[in-house]
């Protein structure tokens, strides 16, 4: 059994005629101990999908229209508030983009980690355990750090504290929503190393959201590329990076600046990401697609397994 199974998840913002579909039929599985990357431009529904796993998108304004999210075999969309509070942290933990804002500015970091312990492992909610966790995420001199306020730490340190908080509850799945975007490049590598190391040691699965393809090659087992609220390509990381099939994935990889080569200008994907609720008819990438044909705008293509374990939502992938 897979740890996480998202089946045809549909989520709207607003209701009735104002409804804007942010997530449109996402299906994704994560096995125990697997690292899956969710890649895509801003506003393509990555974060909303990730937050939906623990039903963290507030409803209203959100409206879970359909689908199932099976976490450990139980549908989180049907859980009571109490059950949700148990699986939040208990089964799935989150690490967010901006560590400075994700830590409560008026509490010492030791107490914030202890709060997570109190909720999920009350018998171990003590300083020794907090220090062990801080050591685990590589914070030097944790004994003195537990009395620090968040503003007394650097961005990288803060993100380590966030990870320690997420690990405190011993989750099976760690959802990291662009954990390195707000950090320095050098710190980014450290945080990724840390995540990879922790995954190996603790055996948890990671769902990593990023728009940085470099990270994907570094850490992911499998990758799902999202565009306009849909998965457009799903494959193992090696396959996808070596041989992207969907035109959007190709365009995305072309826009990564290369150090070698004599290009003067950085290439970008022409046009803009469509606004949710205002998607073009048919294939959502068609207006920006270099190989678009007239029939692309007729109907939304299906996600098809074109090679073993390599799924693409484009009939013209060849």
């Amino acid at each position, binding site marked *: 059994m897979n740890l996480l199974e998202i089946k045809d998840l549909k989520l709207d913002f607003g209701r009735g005629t104002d409804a804007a579909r942010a997530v449109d039929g996402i299906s994704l599985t994560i096995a125990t101990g697997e690292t899956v990357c969710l890649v895509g431009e801003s506003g393509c529904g990555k974060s909303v999908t990730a937050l939906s796993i*623990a039903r*963290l998108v507030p409803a*209203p304004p959100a409206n879970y229209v359909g689908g199932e999210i099976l976490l450990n075999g139980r549908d989180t969309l049907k859980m009571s508030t109490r059950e*949700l*509070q*148990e*699986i*939040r*942290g*208990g089964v799935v*933990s*989150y690490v*967010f*983009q*901006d560590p400075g*804002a*994700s*830590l*409560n*500015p*008026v*509490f010492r970091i030791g107490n914030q980690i202890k*709060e*997570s312990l109190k*909720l*999920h492992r009350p018998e171990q909610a003590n300083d020794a355990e907090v220090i062990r966790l801080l050591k685990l995420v590589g914070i030097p001199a944790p004994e003195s750090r537990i009395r620090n306020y968040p503003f007394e730490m650097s961005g990288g340190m803060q993100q380590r504290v*966030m990870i320690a*908080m997420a690990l405190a*509850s011993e989750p099976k799945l760690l959802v990291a929503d662009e954990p390195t975007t707000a950090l320095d490049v050098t710190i980014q590598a450290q945080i990724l190393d840390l995540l990879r190391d922790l995954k190996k040691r603790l055996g948890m699965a990671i769902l990593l959201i990023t728009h940085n393809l470099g990270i994907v090659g570094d850490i992911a087992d499998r990758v799902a590329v999202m565009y306009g609220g849909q998965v457009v390509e799903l494959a193992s990381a090696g396959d996808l990076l070596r041989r992207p099939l969907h035109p959007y994935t190709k365009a995305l990889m072309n826009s990564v600046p290369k150090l070698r080569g004599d290009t003067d200008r950085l290439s970008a994907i022409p046009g803009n990401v469509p606004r949710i609720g205002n998607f073009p008819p048919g294939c959502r990438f068609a207006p920006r697609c270099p190989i678009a044909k007239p029939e692309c705008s007729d109907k939304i293509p299906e996600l098809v397994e074109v090679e073993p374990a390599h799924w693409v939502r484009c009939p013209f992938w060849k």
Partner: protein
Amino acid sequence: MLGGGLLLFLYALAIFAGFISPYDYVRQDHDRFFHPPTWPKISGFHVAIPRYEHLPGDCVYRRDPGDSVPLHFFVHGDAYRLLGLIPFSIHLFGTGNDNYPVYLLGTDQYGRDILSRLLYGSEISLSIGIIGIVISFTLGLLIGGISGYFGGPTDNVIMRWCELIMSVPTLYMVIALRNTFPANISSAQVYGIIIIIYSFIRWAGMARVIRGMTLSLCEQPFVLAARAMGQSHLKIIVRHILPNTFSYVIVAATLSVPYYILGEVDLSYLGVGIQEPSASWGLMLNAAQNTEYMKNYPWLLAPGVAIFITVLAFNFLGDGLRDAADTKA
């Protein structure tokens, strides 16, 4: 700083009112109504209290510097309870001689020492603000936090209710509420009623501000992080959101203590607050209403000066705290 120091001093005086005041607040001196403030005589290192001669006529006194007794410290006098608990009868200063009384601020129309009544009255007048703030801010923080956090219909109902409370003129509402209780209840009961009435009116304004701050704090990632941790709604409000409003709340609390002090003064002045023979600043000012008294016995206005100083001190403290808490201002 000045405000804070002054307030510490005033509250210390209130706590040790029994010890510092030379007489009991109900003790009447039937020979000396409207006694003017006693001016001590200073000769070298000694302070002496001169005798005031009661001249023929209504309440006219003449100071006789030639006839005086020395002022003693830690003298035996009227019995009281130190800190409200320990029976005690030693006072900070006094003459120990009833013919040479120390009335540093004079006496009132019943021959009671105004300084002593002022000190005993400060117990009521100063504590009413603190207790009132604690009640109304607890209510305001919780209700405002709930309103802003949950939003939607909850928010609507709570906010319209707040507006309803705030739209009624305070003084009318207070007097109307006061009149729902019998008129002849004890001072301690009136004290409680005043606090409750004012707290239940003033929480509304606080709740509105806290609701606004909660709305903006809810957008902060740390609230999402707390939810993602599996924390319950009430704990997120109390532990994560409300502490982030404290820098504002502390300032607002300091600045609104005077409303409670003045509220008690208003009610007592209008005769529906603290009742004789208890002492409170409003009640004492009530006695000074008469223009005849004000002209002839201006020392009756001493509680007015005390109110003025206290309110000013609270405002200074509030301003100082605001400057310290808010680097943008």
